[in-house]
Structure formats: structure tokens, C-alpha cells
């Protein structure tokens, strides 16, 4: 299997946080969803891939090239990036940005750029300062898509966008993936979007990878058991990831619902969402 991104034992130390031995492999032609609480290490991982920070140890390969702490310009040309904040000066307009990016990227395609501007309804007669948050993000996305990248990396790029435009953008991603040489790494809090289009899900918590599997596997294998507080104790701990108890019942996140049901056929087990998985792992109060 050819990997677009092959990250091994990535470690980055900050005074208050450590990204610890993170290993992620993203096969070419797939969409990898990246979930985790704020501060869990998603952005640090992405910054490490993009060489925005100097990592302490580990290796990162992009399409077979070693880009650890140093990517060539050629490699960078093939990576399109959307960060969580708009990165263009207030005074710029769409045509200015086209002019600037044309002179930065070798493969800049003005035609594609303008077609995305049209498709996303981005105003061409206003300066960035006057853009709404949604338009700023759409602009960043249009730029990222317009230099023929092989890999798209998006860090919380769709937060703050309404469901309609998000749906449009998901379609753009699915279009992008039609080419098997294209890959997407998408970090997002909008887990429903990830459930829709991702092929793989990586979950990071406190700087460590909890799991990195196909989305189908994750949603098929994990489950939630609902039982009385008394019954909760009887289940084998090898199944239990975490449980949440309230005055009236207990909910347990289990890691293999088919095996669980074989062992406890009368248990009440339901399917799980990515959001619930995150909540259980963090031990927070759930809101089913």
C-alpha cells in the first residue's frame, strides 16, 4: 500500500505539552479524519508535517520523500493547506491574491481559482477585511485547491460554516479524491462531516494516538451499552473503554460490540457516533 503521508514516532516537546510518539499512515487516495479535543495535539501534528515547528524526533515521509523538519519547495508545491484562520491581509482583494499566489506557486491555476471563487460565491469587489468568516475560509480553501496539490491538509477549516456550504465543500473534497493520487487530511470538530466522507479516522488525546483505523471499523466495532447501575459491574472489563453513570442508569463504551453481544446476548447495545466516542474517552458528560 502506498502511503501519501507516513509519520513515525513523531515527538515534539513544549513546556506544557508533549506530542508523544505519534505514528499515522495515510494511504494515497483516501480521506483521513483527525479528531481530538482542543489541545490534544491535532494542530501540533499538522504543524509538524508542514514544518511550521521543529520536531524533536521521528520521521515524516510525503509520497516517499523525507520531509522531516525540511521539505523541498517541490514537495510544498504539492501540499495545499487551509489553517483555522484566514491568512491574507485585510487590504487584499481576490485579484490581488491571484496575482500574489501566481508568483508564489509554479503550478498556480488562475482559471481553477476563479471557478472556485464563483462556485463559493466569494465577493470579488470587497477586501478581505470586509469578508464574513465563512467567506474567508472559503477563500483559503479556493487558494489551497488552485495549485494542483496532491495532498490537502485542513485544520478546522469548516468550523464556522453553515451546513449548506459545508455540504458543498464536502462534495468538493469527494471530487478531489476521485483522482487516486490525491489525499486529504482533515481535522475537524464537526464529527458528522467526518462520519460522512472519511475513509480513516485517527483519534488523538493528550498528545498520543488512541486509535487510527478505517471509519467503518470504528463505527462497526465500538458500541454503547445501556444498563442499570447494578448491572454495570457484571461485564468483563476487557470490553470496557469507559463508562458514564448517572442517577438512573449507566452507559458503557465497549470496543467490540459483536463479541460483546455473543457473550451477553440480552444486553442493550446501540451503535455509536464519533462524537460519543470522543466524549466517552474524555470522560465528559454525554448528551445523547
Amino acid at each position, binding site marked *: 500500500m502506498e502511503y501519501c503521508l507516513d509519520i513515525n514516532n513523531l515527538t515534539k516537546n513544549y513546556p506544557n505539552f508533549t506530542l508523544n510518539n505519534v505514528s499515522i499512515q495515510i494511504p494515497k*487516495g483516501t480521506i483521513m479524519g483527525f479528531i481530538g479535543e482542543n489541545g490534544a495535539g491535532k494542530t501540533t501534528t499538522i504543524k509538524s508535517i508542514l514544518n511550521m515547528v521543529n520536531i524533536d524526533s521521528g520521521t515524516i515521509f510525503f509520497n516517499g520523500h523525507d520531509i522531516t523538519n525540511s521539505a523541498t519547495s517541490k514537495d510544498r508545491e504539492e501540499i495545499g493547506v487551509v489553517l483555522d484562520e484566514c491568512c491574507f491581509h485585510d487590504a487584499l482583494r481576490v485579484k490581488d491574491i491571484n496575482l500574489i499566489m501566481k508568483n508564489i506557486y509554479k503550478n498556480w491555476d488562475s482559471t481553477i481559482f476563479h471557478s472556485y471563487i464563483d462556485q463559493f460565491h466569494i465577493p470579488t469587489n470587497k477586501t478581505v477585511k470586509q469578508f464574513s468568516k465563512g467567506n474567508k475560509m472559503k477563500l483559503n480553501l479556493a487558494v489551497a485547491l488552485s495549485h494542483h496539490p496532491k495532498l490537502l491538509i485542513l485544520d478546522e477549516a469548516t468550523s464556522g460554516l453553515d451546513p449548506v456550504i459545508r455540504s458543498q465543500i*464536502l462534495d468538493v473534497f469527494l*471530487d478531489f*479524491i*476521485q483522482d487516486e493520487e490525491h489525499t486529504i487530511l482533515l481535522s475537524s470538530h464537526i464529527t458528522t462531516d467526518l462520519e460522512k*466522507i*472519511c*475513509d480513516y479516522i485517527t483519534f488523538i488525546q493528550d498528545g498520543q494516538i488512541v486509535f487510527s483505523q478505517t471509519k*467503518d471499523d470504528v463505527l*462497526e466495532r465500538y458500541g454503547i451499552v445501556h444498563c442499570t447501575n447494578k448491572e454495570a459491574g457484571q461485564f468483563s472489563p476487557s470490553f470496557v473503554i469507559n463508562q458514564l453513570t448517572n442517577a438512573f442508569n449507566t452507559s458503557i463504551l465497549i470496543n467490540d460490540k459483536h463479541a460483546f453481544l455473543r457473550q451477553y446476548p440480552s444486553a442493550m447495545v446501540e451503535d455509536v457516533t464519533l462524537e460519543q466516542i470522543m466524549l466517552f474517552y474524555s470522560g465528559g458528560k454525554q448528551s445523547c
Partner: protein
Amino acid sequence: MDILINNSSGIPIYEQIYNQVKTQIVTGQLKEGEALPSMRLLAKELRISVITTKRAYEELERDGLIETITGKGSFVGKQNIEVIREEFLKETEEHMQKAIESARHTDMNLQDLIELLKMLYDFE
């Protein structure tokens, strides 16, 4: 090709695709040699993961229903349609056998049974 996905049916999506494609092949809706949409196109249109469609196609291929040629795509296979039809016939026979056994516990005779079958068939 028609594919309808039910997100709340409890049946895994790849299985739903598998079942629907299989049915369409067996009933002749999808003809021998006919090209199936690519896994990626199917994933895009249904807005699901390409790994799901890949799995469905792999199972269909494993069961001899389709053939995937790298670089060209997936096509409805030739030989095993008859075998599948045989399978369905056998299944129908088994269900009918069960129905007859249940009927023997009631006061239905053969004619009643035929009437019931007709009614249910027309109702479909």
C-alpha cells in the same frame, strides 16, 4: 444502477450495496458484461467512504458476481448467474417447504394455500 442506502437499518452499508447489486445482477437488471460505476464514483455519489464501496465490490468479486480489471473497472461476471438463480430457487423451495409445514398445523388445504400465495404475490 440503483442503490438505496438506509442509514438506520442496522445493516452495514457495504452489505446493503452488496445485496442490492447481487439482486440486480440475478434479476437481470444488470446485464452480463455491463460496467459498474467505479468504486470512487459510487463513494462520491452516495457520499460514503471509498473503503466501503471497495469492500462491497471485493465481496461481489469474491462471490464471482463481478470481475474487477485494474485500470478498466468492474464488470458484471458471466458464468455464475445461473448458479445464483439456482440458489434463490433452492431458497424459495425451502421457504415454501416451511410454509407447507406450518399450514399442516392449521386447517388449510392445498387450494387455500394457493389462494394465499396468489394474494401475497399480487400484494407485492
